């Protein structure tokens, strides 16, 4: 089964891929991977698998080598105000890197009432003495050592795996406050390693918490404070190989620890892609996507994770669960994959996944449309969904977010471009009579073969025109998508200046989209006022996905917390109220972020008591001793 179709054609591709890889590797300041050889050797016993991905890994065991310990992403990339007081994005990794963003300061000052004089710097380094000494299960440790699987109880390693990226988690880290953290980190290298670890954990009653990319925003990685057993964080990041590619069936078998950018890059080398691009794809892992029911930006073409997965292997305390074949659809009772997808690490560790792959698209084109107001924009998206002609991605930003996007425009190099921008603005606001305080913009991404893309593009723009939409250029569209990767960095800048915030999402039927957007935004504003927030908050939303029967809506919420004694508590109260509002307006508890511990309290009303009982009985059978004790979901 292992090595498949790969004829001379595919080995050619591989050769080309290798070349391209080395180029990319040059761009990336890739960490030294001293131990990759050893790790691969350890799992060689598994057979002659075609290890497509022996190189090009992004995530090292010691994440601290390239990533921030108390903020988002790479250590070398961040927003800051330079000596001239201009905002700038550091590093070399992104299109925005090294650029000045002239509009950001004014936007921050006017939107939040923030001020460069009022700083709230983060604790510069992790103080290891603030970390509680580990509670180790000696018997477990002894047997673990004998397996040769790498592990660590170094304070930094443990702290890195104790949190996701919820506001309260990052806020606490910035203040140098560290709560309960895992006692041990292990780095299995392959499926068999995981089987051994889970067996030992069961034997010695140790609590296991799977860790993939660490991008959770649902408190899923928080150690339950009531947990008294030794907590072992099972970091899948080293299980990151593509084991085989099946070009006849267009599937790839991949280890679940691989992060999105590596998966995509490595498949691209063979001329393929999964097309699964969640906003967190730089850091989030395949296993994490499966465990939370992730959704990607281009799901209109490629599908969400549940559409992409063909086969899953998961290690549970009861043993390994997997299906016997790779049939594209089965009628064999309830689909057991759906116990795994969304199980959020409560049942076991996903180790290997077979996923659909597609040939890389021949042609990509960005686009954007300006609408006179949000109502028209939503009506247009609804029509696009009705006609089932959504491009790979279509997103509609509200007016506040449009302005925000505008503030993030990098300095333009030529007078000509700035002149052109001015002209465009004049055309839209003066000539077309759009109110700059009401207009909103949709960003588009088309993919496929060139001819079809152009045809498709015309169809979508024609629909947009019926709703008063004006095409506003490729550039605006592309910038919109680029921003999704840097926006997470922006929160760290805000936090340097008394501004805290977060995003959260929901899915909702079409007829309620406008109502939910209006009501949730208004609720946030009112709650902030009631809770004593001194400045008006940023409360904005965008429609990020369209479905036949509804849409996914994303809310951004941030405020200046100067004058508040417990800003995080206020933040949490407001977010709680906003979620209540979402549910009252027919929105779902989550579209793709998951439940974790943050949204557990609403699970029963969401899926009914019987539904809870069903999930619970599965948990009770699969993991009676709560080895996978992160206490998410239920």
């Amino acid at each position, binding site marked *: 089964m292992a090595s498949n179709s790969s004829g001379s054609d595919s080995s050619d591709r591989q050769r080309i891929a290798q070349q391209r890889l080395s180029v990319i590797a040059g761009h990336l300041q890739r960490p030294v991977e001293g131990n990759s050889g050893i790790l691969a050797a350890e799992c060689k016993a598994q057979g002659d698998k075609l290890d497509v991905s022996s190189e090009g890994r992004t995530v090292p065991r010691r994440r601290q080598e390239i990533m921030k310990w108390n903020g988002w992403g790479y250590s070398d990339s961040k927003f800051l105000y330079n000596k001239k007081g201009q905002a700038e994005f550091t590093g070399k990794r992104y299109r925005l890197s090294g650029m000045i963003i002239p509009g950001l300061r004014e936007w921050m000052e006017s939107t939040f009432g923030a001020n460069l004089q009022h700083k709230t710097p983060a604790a510069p380094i992790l103080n290891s003495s603030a970390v509680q000494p580990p509670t180790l299960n000696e018997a477990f440790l002894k047997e673990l050592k004998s397996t040769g699987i790498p592990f660590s109880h170094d304070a930094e390693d443990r702290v890195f795996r104790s949190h996701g990226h919820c506001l309260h988690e990052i806020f606490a880290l910035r203040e140098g406050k560290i709560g309960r953290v895992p006692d041990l980190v292990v780095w299995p290298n392959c499926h068999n390693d995981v089987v051994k670890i889970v067996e030992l954990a069961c034997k010695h009653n140790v609590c296991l918490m799977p860790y993939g990319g660490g991008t959770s925003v649902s408190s899923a990685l928080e150690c339950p404070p009531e947990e008294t057993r030794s907590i072992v964080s099972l970091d899948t990041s080293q299980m990151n190989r593509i084991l085989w590619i099946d070009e006849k069936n267009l599937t790839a078998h991949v280890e679940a620890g691989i992060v999105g950018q590596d998966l995509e890059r490595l498949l691209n080398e063979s001329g393929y892609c999964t097309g699964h691009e969640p906003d967190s794809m730089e850091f989030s892992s395949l296993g994490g996507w499966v465990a939370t029911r992730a959704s990607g930006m281009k799901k209109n073409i490629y599908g969400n994770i549940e559409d992409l997965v063909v086969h899953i292997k998961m290690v549970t305390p009861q043993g390994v669960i997997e299906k016997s074949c790779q049939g594209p659809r089965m009628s064999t009772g309830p689909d057991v994959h759906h116990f795994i997808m969304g199980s959020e690490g409560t049942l076991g560790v996903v180790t290997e996944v077979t996923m659909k792959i597609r040939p890389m698209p021949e042609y990509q084109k960005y686009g954007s449309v300006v609408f006179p107001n949000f109502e028209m924009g939503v009506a247009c998206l609804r029509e696009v969904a009705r006609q089932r002609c959504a491009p790979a991605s279509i997103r509609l930003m509200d007016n506040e977010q449009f302005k925000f996007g505008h503030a993030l425009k990098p300095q333009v190099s030529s007078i000509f471009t700035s002149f052109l921008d001015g002209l465009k603005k004049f055309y839209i606001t003066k000539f077309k009579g759009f109110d700059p305080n009401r207009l909103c913009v949709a960003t588009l991404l088309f993919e496929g073969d060139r001819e079809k893309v152009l045809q498709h593009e015309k169809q979508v723009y024609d629909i947009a025109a019926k709703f008063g939409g004006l095409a506003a250029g490729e550039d605006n569209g592309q910038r919109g998508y680029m921003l999704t990767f840097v926006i997470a960095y922006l929160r760290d800048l805000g936090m340097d200046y008394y501004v805290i915030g977060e995003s959260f999402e929901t899915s909702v039927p079409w*007829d309620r989209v406008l109502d*939910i957007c*209006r009501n949730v935004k*208004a609720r946030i504003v009112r709650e902030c006022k009631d809770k004593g927030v001194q400045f008006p908050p940023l409360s904005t939303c965008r429609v990020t996905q369209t479905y036949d029967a509804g849409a996914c809506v994303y809310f951004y919420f941030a405020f200046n917390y100067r004058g508040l004694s417990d800003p995080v508590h206020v933040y949490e109260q407001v977010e709680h109220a906003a979620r209540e509002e979402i549910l*009252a307006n*027919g929105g779902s508890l989550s579209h793709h972020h998951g439940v974790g511990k943050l949204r557990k309290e609403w699970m029963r*009303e969401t899926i009914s008591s019987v539904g809870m009982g069903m999930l619970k009985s599965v948990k009770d059978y699969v993991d009676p001793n709560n080895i996978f004790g992160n206490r998410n979901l239920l």
Partner: protein
Amino acid sequence: MTSTYKDSGTASLKDEEEFTDILEERRRTTDLGYALRTFNPQLYKGAPSSSTSDLKKAVLESQYLRYIAKEIALETGSSVEKVRQEARGILEEMSHNLQLGFIRLMAYTFNKVFKRLFRSIYVNMEGLNMLQQAIQESPVILMPNHRSYVDFLIVSFILFTYDIPIPVIAAGIPLASMKVVGEILRRSGAFFIRRAIGSDKLYWAVLSEYVRTIVRTGCAPLEFYVEGFRSRTLKSVVPKLGMMDMVLEPYFKGEVFDITLVPISISYDRVVEESLLALELLGVPKPKESTTGLFKASRVLQEDYGCMHVNFGRPLSVRQLCEGKINRSEYNLIPRDLPQRPSTEIQDCVNWVAHLIVRTQEEGSLISPWSLMACLLLQAPITTLTEEGLQWHGLTEKTLWLRKLVLDFRGRLNWPAHTPDSDVMSSTVALHRSIVHHKAGRVCLVQDGDPASQDPLSPEEGVMRTAAAVLMLVSYRNQALHVFVRPGILATAIHITKSTQKDELFSFFCFLRDVFANEFIFIPGRASQDFDEACSLLQKCGAVHMSEQEVTVLETGLEVLSFLQKLLQPFLDSYQLIFRYLCENGAHVFTEKQFLPAVQNLATKLILSGDLHTFEVLSSDTQKNVLSALRRLEAVTKLRASQQNEYKVNKAAVRRTGDILSGKIPPESLHAIPDARL
């Protein structure tokens, strides 16, 4: 901006200073100049500028109406197009056609009329300011009480004066059929609702969609009378829920973020229709609304009606009011466009909000010295009033005593400052010379009709004549009743049970509250708060002493308690009489048409024989209230199949209720507290 119920209703003398006489400026400027003033109000921020035809189109094309039309077509076998045509007709008949030109015309006319009728129209500016703010934030519902035809459009008049968007107003259809005037009203923002809609499904659908669309879009403030109609008794009427339900639904369904309710209390020194009202209550039919009738009524312009107070209450956020009471997600599983029967939770909440609004209207209304005098005059024996008259000196003294009690009870009093009390008293009596006259140190009831007439009145006619005068007094007493009701019911409970035990008094208090729920406004589910309020007020005025378990009457409190008990005695007497009629005289099944005159006959007889001391039972309002109360207590049931309102009476149950009311048997614990959450 908005605040919860708890904050409102604290009245003090200071409030009076905040009222501004809006006629004062009008008297100084020209009517025409005023009518042509620039009008440029701040609108609701979410409102699209939409015309009345847009509104009609939105209603007709709504998914909801499409659905209903299809359903009706299926039921009746007619075509969908026909049903929709019919809906269009209903909508045409209903729709307002608000035009600024007609508002100006209205303002011009009203200016002239009001300046003749009233000495002053006082408006609280703070309330107007809050309203102006509220209108920009969310759709606003203006909810005035309705005591006189004069107050139809008064709110529009005031809002025009202060540059606030003109409301559209729900009106009864008879107004629409008045020649010319109907059209003027329509163009001044009135929309018209048929009286007995009954089970006309299409009509309900058009009306509710029309109302909801107005609220949803926030195109104009919506004004309606939650009491449903003009109160003939000048007492608050138990709210009607149909319109309230339609108005709140857009919030329940998440179609708007919030809705603001503004209770408005309109109070008069003297009501233009006072004598008509009394006659109507006695069964003399009211004249049909007609344009010629309106002109005939122009003689009322010759008279003095004192002052009018329009008190704009604190805007209430529906969102805040409903918090914790309802779960809006019950609308998640059915498309919101489809008709859906609201859950009992929602219905209870609507009922609660409606009662709360009426209570707030009560608390915001101003009590005139005349109302206090009416309370006292009615406690004098009727022969004293009709014959020798009541001592002026005694009445003055007692009125001043009552003034203090009202203030103790946190009532809002409209007692002219900086005027000697004796002047206030005599000018008040002068204003109401159609009801009483003051001569030679005595006050007598004025009775209509020529005493020198050739044909002496029959005794029965005499009773009716006196009743007409008494019922006028009663209606002015009613304006003050809401201040006294809660302590009054406690005083009655003390009087009847002779108990000092708090729990015993509480259960009797609840029983009375239950029996009289059609008579007075009690907010559902607030029995214990009402009881506590009654206790604390009686304690405050030194009438009782409270301990953990007991309520003891103090020597100093006898005057207060006896006043309160006598204030409510007519209600007890009336109810007992009707109970007695039902148990002894009536058949097991009766119609409303038989019931009303039969009760009136019996009452007249008993008044003549001196066995009945109240004329209030002669009022059809009282009679209907008793019937409603008995239906609520399930002692009387309405027969379903019946076309002409037939009722079946359970005599044992009526008798038992009467026995509890007279204190012969203790009230069973009626309350399983069904609406504890409220």
